């Protein structure tokens, strides 16, 4: 059995994990008609549970990690996200079928009826509160709070992991400097989420679930949420070990593991490897290529894309320049993370702009 485990460990690398996630995401969108069938969904559920049981039985390491009180929320998250995604897609698929046949969405049938706040709303809220309380109490009775030893400045725990819900952010820190991954991106995520209602002018899909009527709103959002957040949390939990090294899900976390980390800055690529001359001493000159790339990406690329891609052309007309500009800016920044990840894996690229003189690294 360990051959299977070793094979999974071997196959799973940061880049392959990312590719598998993206393929999975694509399949999820593409074959939504299929997997939203309840029968099929139940099969997926059983396969996933079977896989976890298999992992727990055959890998003590996986079992140790999975049963840590810290990591219980991860399973809640995985199955919670899975269930609610399924539910929304199921309803969207049903509605899309009805719309295609010229019928109104399911929600339409009840949307003109009224119910009382008391007891219909308040009562079920109260019951939900009670059940929530029961769940929390049972949880706290069964599992101890995962406290660690007293903090010491001389010795940080290894691995030093953020709370589980921040592991996606922590994964970003592998690819970007703290000022970006820890400050700018999180801020932009919040601003971006706040901006959605102002950018999204599409009146369709209001009050009912649909996919076909708003694919452009759903796909990028879910990409950001699934690929750049949820799967990274999963990765951070099960595949990041001591030294923040990447470990297969069944690989023992050896704190003394040594891996190759020869990351190279863009400036070195251009000046040393391509042009064959040394690095200029002046930091601006040295990093000029990085600045050009960033400048092009943020300023040059949007008009170019708009010109070349007809869908974007339409979008520009629909949204107007300001909305469109903000949207593009946010989208490009979101894309910056996977782009940098890919660049790291393919070219060992460390920084596009790297100015250690005053800690400005991109």
């Amino acid at each position: 059995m360990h051959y299977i485990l070793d094979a999974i460990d071997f196959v799973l690398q940061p880049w392959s994990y990312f590719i598998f996630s993206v393929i999975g995401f694509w399949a999820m969108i593409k074959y939504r008609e299929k997997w939203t069938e309840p029968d099929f969904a139940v099969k997926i559920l059983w396969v996933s549970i079977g896989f976890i049981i298999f992992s727990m039985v055959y890998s003590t390491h996986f079992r140790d990690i999975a049963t840590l009180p810290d990591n219980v929320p991860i399973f809640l998250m995985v199955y919670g996200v899975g269930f609610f995604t399924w539910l929304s897609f199921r309803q969207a698929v049903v509605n899309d079928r009805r719309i295609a046949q010229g019928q109104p969405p399911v929600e339409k049938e009840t949307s003109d009826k009224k119910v009382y706040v008391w007891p219909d709303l308040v009562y079920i809220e109260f019951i939900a509160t009670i059940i929530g309380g029961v769940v929390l109490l049972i949880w706290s009775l069964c599992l101890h709070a995962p406290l660690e030893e007293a903090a010491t400045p001389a010795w940080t725990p290894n691995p030093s992991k953020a709370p589980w819900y921040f592991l996606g952010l922590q994964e970003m820190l592998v690819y970007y400097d703290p000022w970006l991954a820890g400050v700018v991106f999180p801020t932009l995520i919040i601003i971006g989420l706040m901006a959605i209602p102002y950018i999204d002018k599409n009146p369709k899909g209001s009050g009912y679930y649909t996919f076909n009527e708003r694919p452009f709103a759903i796909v990028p959002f879910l990409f950001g949420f699934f690929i750049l957040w949820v799967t990274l949390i999963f990765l951070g939990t099960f595949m990041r070990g001591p030294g923040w090294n990447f470990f297969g899900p069944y690989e023992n976390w050896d704190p003394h593991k040594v891996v190759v980390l020869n990351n190279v800055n863009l400036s070195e690529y251009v000046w040393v490897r391509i042009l064959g001359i040394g690095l200029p001493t002046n930091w601006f000159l040295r990093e000029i290529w990085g600045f050009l790339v960033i400048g092009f990406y943020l300023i040059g690329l949007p008009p170019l894309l708009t010109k070349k891609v007809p869908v974007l052309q339409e979008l520009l007309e629909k949204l107007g320049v300001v909305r469109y500009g903000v949207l593009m800016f946010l989208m490009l920044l979101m894309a910056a993370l996977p782009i940098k990840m890919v660049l790291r894996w393919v070219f060992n690229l460390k920084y596009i702009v790297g100015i250690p003189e005053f800690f400005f690294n991109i």
Partner: protein
Amino acid sequence: MADFKDERAYNSKTLTKVFLWSGLLLLICVFLMVWKDYNRPWKAYQRQFMQLQKEQAIEQVPDVVSDIDVAKFKELYEAKKQAEKDLETHESEISKLNKQSADLDNQIYKVKTVDYQPLKAQIDADKYTYMARSEEGKDNENLKKKIDAETDQANAYTQKLFELNQQKDQVAKDLSTLYARRDEVAGNLAKMEADFLKLKTKIDKNSFSFLFYFRNAMMLDFLAPTIQIQQVVLKNLPEDMYFAKTMRVDRCMTCHMAIDKKGFENAPQPFRTHPNLDLYIGSSSPHPLEKIGCTICHGGMGQATDFNTCAHVPNDDEQAKLWKEKYNWEQPEGVQSTMLPLKYTEGSCLKCHGTQEQVNFAPKLNRGRELMITRGCVGCHKVKNLEGLTKAGPSLVRVKGKLKEEFVEKWVWDPKSYNAAARMPSFFQQTNNSDPDSLARNKAELHSIVRYLYTHSEGYTPNEAPAGGSVANGKKIFKEIGCLACHGIDDVTSHHADFAPDLSSVGSKLSAAFIYTWIKNPRHFNPDTRMPVLRLTNQEAADVTAYLMSKRNKAFDEASAPQADPAVRDALILDYLKVQFGIDGAKTQLAQMDDKAKEQYLGQKSLSKYGCFGCHMIQGFETAQGIGTELSDWGTKQVSQLDFGTTGLPHTHEAFVNAKLENPRQFDNGKDVVFNDKLKMPNFHLSPEDRESIVTAVLGLTNTYVPDEMTAGIHGNGPLLEKGRRVIFDFNCRGCHLIEDQGGRIREMYQKEGIDLSLAPPNLRKEGAKVQVEWFHDFLMNVHPIRPWLHIHMPSFAWTDEKIDAVITYFNLKEDEQAFPFKTINVPKLSASDLTQTKAMFDKLQCKKCHVFGSQVPADLSTAAPDLLKVHERLKPEWVLDWLKNPDALSPGVRMPAFWPQPDDKSPVPQYFHGNSEKQREMLRNYLFMLSSAK
């Protein structure tokens, strides 16, 4: 899904049912929560302990009851009854007195609280006003008058109170006179019952009564529970939480309830009494519970009250297995401090006693520390408080004049092949360097090392040894004179000292001339050696030389030295040079070297690499630093910082050190390591016991914060005592003598061979109180036998004044005697009549039967006692008195009889000085001091 019947989204009946069930579930969960909070394992232990105490008390009842004299008890009981009857006849008188007493109480109350106290308050207020007004310069005349009047009144009240109290005392006295008889009888009765009642109280207290259940009931136990957490708070031993120091709180006794109570020595855990209450925990012990607590010694999480969260650590695998079954035990992880396995607990002594040379009652720790010094651990590893000590191995500054090159190569290549008891550890032919490639390189290194040593060695020529010498006689002298206190040899199995080199094969190592010269005067070869002079005659020295030269290791003699390959040597040199000069430069450099230069270069590099200078004095390495990891706080190093490699050991400190000592190179197993980066710690071939001792000593090296006031050996005379102890350790005084009742290791041989222990070197208990400072100094400067007829010799150490001073100061301060300035010895002379009596007593006691008396010697000289004519110049008068009174207390097992058996102190010769033992001893002492001075 909403069904919208009757304009309602949900069926209200269903909702109510769901509400009912979820509400019930919540209630159950709340109950479970309270129960879980209430039901702590330690509570069960406390209930069990109550049961245990109760059972023990009940068991004792028959004994206590049988001690009571029933007839007397009955008699007293009757007497009490009678006394109470008698009291009835005085009934009117008693009631009158009681009434008077009550009346007086009322009056006293009135005068005190109604009259006096308000007036006193008024006076104080007026006095304040007086002061305030005079500060403002106002007229105070009327106020002054008022205060005076009030004060007079207050004094009158005080007087009244005094009188009333006197009257009351009188009434009470009258009453007690009447009750006197009854009270006396009742008191006696109570005394007889006391033990029984005490037991009864104990039984009642530990019974599970309704009140017990009420006070400890769930939700009510916040009021006044009897089952509760027990703890000590240790302000002086804070826990270092890195950012702040918090008070250490130990709650171990919450479950270990009998830890400070005698009588539970055999009870099952956790209710066993501490095995050494006199030394620990007991309130009169040096380590009382309320001051020292538990975790500072045992480690673990003092605040936790659950078996696993306390970080219990088992002593061995067997216990681990037991605990796993019984407590679901797991190796503690992520806690600040785990418990030390019981066998290593002595290590914790170092937290407070780290600056001391020896820790009393910690033999394992002392042995570990000793091994760390004598085996040379501290030569490579820096250890706090064990710095700047004499190097463990011999000086190689004159090695050329002592050893043959071939010997050194064979010896270092495999020390065990020369002598199984060799202390020199094995660097070569170990698990990580036994491949052909490493062997070849090691041989090249070794050869260059030896060449370096011989080039950097001063010349030395020993004196000629006289020809002849009896091996048999030499063997006898060697065994008897005291060599065995430091050296081991395979001819003697009853005792094996390892303080100095084992001499079982020394004939294969040294020349006769060297041994002879060395025995006669070790400083001829090495002025700094610790080897003393035994004052042997030339013939004796020749005999010992002959004996030692006969001790050869044939196999070793016949073996050939490892052969170094110059090509391998050059490759090694190239590796070093490469770093500095690059590969081409290195080749050029190498080409410029001749063989000698190459040997010197590689020798020097290899000596640095293996850290040989940690143990040996080597020219050119006088200031080199040890090459090992610093161990000063190794015991608190994070386990995750230790590289266990592929050893598969449990990840604990103790497993790591033990494995490191057992086979230091095993941590290279399964690794691809460059030759020069291979682990270099040599194999010391230690026995499991010795390893355990060293593990104890290493685990005790922590960075636990202990404030100065809790540190031993640094207050008052501490540093001076330690200075003396260091000399005593360095020169192995304990090899022969018992000092602070520790050591006297050579006695092992006397015991095993059935030799009278009184012929062994003396116990130096109270030596400071015993001998005069001047004598002590002269003796150490110029050792002369006190009992010349003994075989074993006190050797002559060539000590500096500083060392002698340290030793004398140590012995004196230890007995609270002042060494300096000198004390006058002042013993009164006997009067003529006293002298006659004393002389008679002296003869009667037959002192001369054992003691030498100037030129008069006892019949059996071999067991004789010291010369009495020298008492006056050697002994302190106070000590002589103590000695005469109880010699065994000062030197256990001594032959000197206790003439005045203690504790009765009955005189054996009652005819002198009216049988006053004290006086007799004093007279005898004065006689001894006079007698000698009269000579």
